[in-house]
């Protein structure tokens, strides 16, 4: 097992299109690192460069202490799980699992012993003599895992391994992969477009878009302190509400004018966004997660200036909670929200729902469609972004590279990037 280091890695295709640029990343030894981003963000390309299946245009990839730029995939001693499993259709399950050991000239008794062990772990023992065509999707996925864990590779590379499974199986396999990784303690680099997978599986999550790393950190740190608008809207489901609002002085304090309401900026928020006072009188982007908008009736004691009045447009009962889509109260000033579009850009909502916010409230709420709701905002959980740079407003100067914000975010989180014990 080894750490994986990427230094200023660049991939440019012969036709000039650039897939990834300036990637600096450390995958600590034994960690479960997830690369997540929308399709086309370069995460798979990055994984394939680590694997050796894609040539590295610039920069350096190190596995352990060895630069591997010029090392062939077969000699990197990594194991990979492919999206379509890529099982050898003409071989039995046992032969599929043992193929890598055969290629590496592991003696036969050892080979058979380890195949049996891997099959045992994955519950594949009854299927060892079957061909992949006679297996279900979940079983094929397990064989692909078996092929990886049966050797002792430097690292596991996984390229969207769960995306071909149905929703229920995906949740189950997600847990199984996490357990196997914890059990073996093997460094794992995992690619997915699904932020839920990233958050649940990774102990380090790397958010990418447009060929660049946006933020690196633990799931909690990404959730609690997104470095820019992209990360803010990509991580979390339902996504964070992002609205344009004016930051105003309210006596000694700062407040956000939203619709007819004023939300006070608390010291906790100022600690995370020390530069905020310099934005007074200007437009900022405020981020409020849906669960931080609560029905006042169930929200417990509040404080000064934490109420947002809004009209309920649609109530969705989810059982465990209720999702409310709310608009500004008629007659008061409106607001306009930002959304993540298909090209991974956060911009003003082009649809008619430009003023709709989502609130995830208590399951017993009595609010109905058309009611004017009084929503209590968890003031310490407000996020502030600079609309011109899209970056979180922080201590660093506006317009600095995302990496700077990244490290701040990492440092602020107690549980970032600690490798899992083997």
């Amino acid at each position: 097992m080894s750490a994986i280091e990427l230094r200023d890695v660049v991939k440019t295709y012969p036709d000039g299109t650039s897939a990834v640029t300036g990637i600096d990343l450390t995958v600590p030894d034994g960690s479960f690192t997830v690369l997540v981003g929308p399709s086309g963000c370069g995460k798979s390309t990055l994984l394939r460069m680590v694997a050796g299946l894609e040539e590295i245009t610039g920069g350096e990839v190190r596995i352990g202490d060895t630069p591997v730029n010029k090392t062939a995939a077969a000699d990197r001693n990594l194991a990979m799980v492919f999206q379509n499993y890529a099982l050898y259709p003409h071989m039995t399950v046992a032969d599929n699992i043992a193929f890598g050991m055969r290629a590496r000239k592991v003696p036969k008794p050892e080979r058979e012993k380890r195949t049996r062990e891997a099959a045992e772990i994955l519950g594949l023992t009854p299927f060892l003599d079957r061909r992949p065509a006679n297996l279900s999707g979940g079983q094929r996925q397990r064989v692909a895992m078996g092929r990886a864990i049966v050797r002792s590779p430097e690292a596991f590379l996984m390229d969207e391994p769960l995306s071909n499974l149905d929703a229920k199986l995906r949740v189950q396999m997600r847990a199984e992969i996490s357990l196997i990784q914890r059990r073996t303690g093997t460094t794992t680099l995992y690619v997915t477009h699904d932020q839920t997978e990233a958050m649940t599986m990774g102990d380090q999550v790397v958010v990418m878009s447009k060929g660049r790393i946006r933020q690196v950190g633990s799931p909690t740190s990404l959730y609690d302190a997104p470095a820019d608008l992209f990360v803010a809207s990509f991580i979390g489901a339902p996504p964070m509400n992002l609205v344009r609002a004016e930051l105003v002085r309210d006596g000694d304090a700062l407040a956000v004018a939203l619709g007819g309401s004023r939300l006070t900026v608390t010291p906790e928020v100022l600690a995370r966004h020390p530069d905020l006072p310099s934005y007074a009188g200007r437009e900022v982007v405020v981020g409020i997660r849906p669960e931080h908008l609560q029905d006042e009736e169930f929200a417990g004691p509040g404080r000064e200036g934490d109420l947002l009045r809004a009209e309920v447009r649609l109530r969705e009962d989810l059982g465990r909670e209720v999702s409310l889509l709310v608009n500004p109260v008629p007659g008061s000033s409106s607001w306009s929200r930002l959304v993540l579009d298909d090209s991974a850009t956060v911009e003003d909502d082009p649809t008619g729902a430009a003023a709709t916010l989502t609130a995830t409230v208590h399951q017993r709420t009595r609010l109905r469609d058309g009611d004017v709701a009084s929503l209590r905002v968890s003031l310490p959980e407000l996020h502030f972004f600079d609309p011109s740079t899209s970056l979180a407003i922080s201590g660093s100067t506006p317009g600095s590279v995302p990496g700077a914000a990244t490290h701040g975010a990492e440092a602020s989180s107690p549980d970032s990037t600690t490798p899992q014990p083997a």
Partner: protein
Amino acid sequence: MRALTALTKETEASVSTTQLEKPVDAVRGPAREGPRSRARRSVTDVAFFAGRLFVWVWVVGTLILGLWLVVASFKDEATVFTSPWSVPTSPRVQSYVDAVQLFNLTDAFLNTVFVVSVSTMLVVAVSAPCAYALARWKFRGSGTLTFVLAAAVGVPVQVLFVPIYLAYSKIGMINSLWGVILIYVGMNIPFTTFLLVSFFRSLPGELEEAAAMDGSKTLRTFFTVMLPLARPGLSTAAIITAIGLWNEFLIALTFLGDDKKYTLTIGLLNLYGNMRYNTNWTALFAGVVISLLPLLVLYAWLSNKIIEGLTLGSGK
């Protein structure tokens, strides 16, 4: 390169004729939309019907001829002419005995089996790795190699007779089965390679990547992963080659002089030449049946594989 694309188009065309049902369904599917498409549908229906009729007429004609040949080979010479359409009451095998004994068809048969099987194996053995390399990698000279192979498909083998004959006579390869095998292999490699290139291209590249991640080097990947997967393609190539060589006549006639070395096609020619003098026609029919039978059996046995191979090569 243009020749290459033309060639792949040609193979695609032959593929679509092997699965006649599908394209027609595809045309019929979206055609339920309006008067114009209905008109178009009736046109394609007529074309389809005409095509089907043509194929059936062809099949029935061939079957009747073949059956007549087999039946006639069991008659005696007189009844073949007096009642050509009758079925013999007591089948006679004397014609077969004559064909085999008088005209030495046993040697010819064994020679053909030897020449065809050795040539076919060599053709596939050379073409498969060559096709794999051309299908998967761009290397220095791969373009030239493709061009040379494409050009070689277009060279009529007859123009090579004189130079090859001169060269062979210098090194004593005239009248040698191995000499003929060498020519057979050479003239079949280009087409077989192209057939297999398109086949290897259709195989998923992810399997090679998986093998590479498993630590397998190119050669091992080729022999343990790609070659087994290419089996339908290889059998298709082998059968097409074997059929062509089984029926090959001109090269055998030119380069084999000794009647101990004759192949079946030349054996039949001799048989035919003799028939004109002693009018043992039924022996000639028997000889033709003997030469046809192995190929028919081979084809019947492997025809599913051939169709599977051709359609797999075209991708899904």
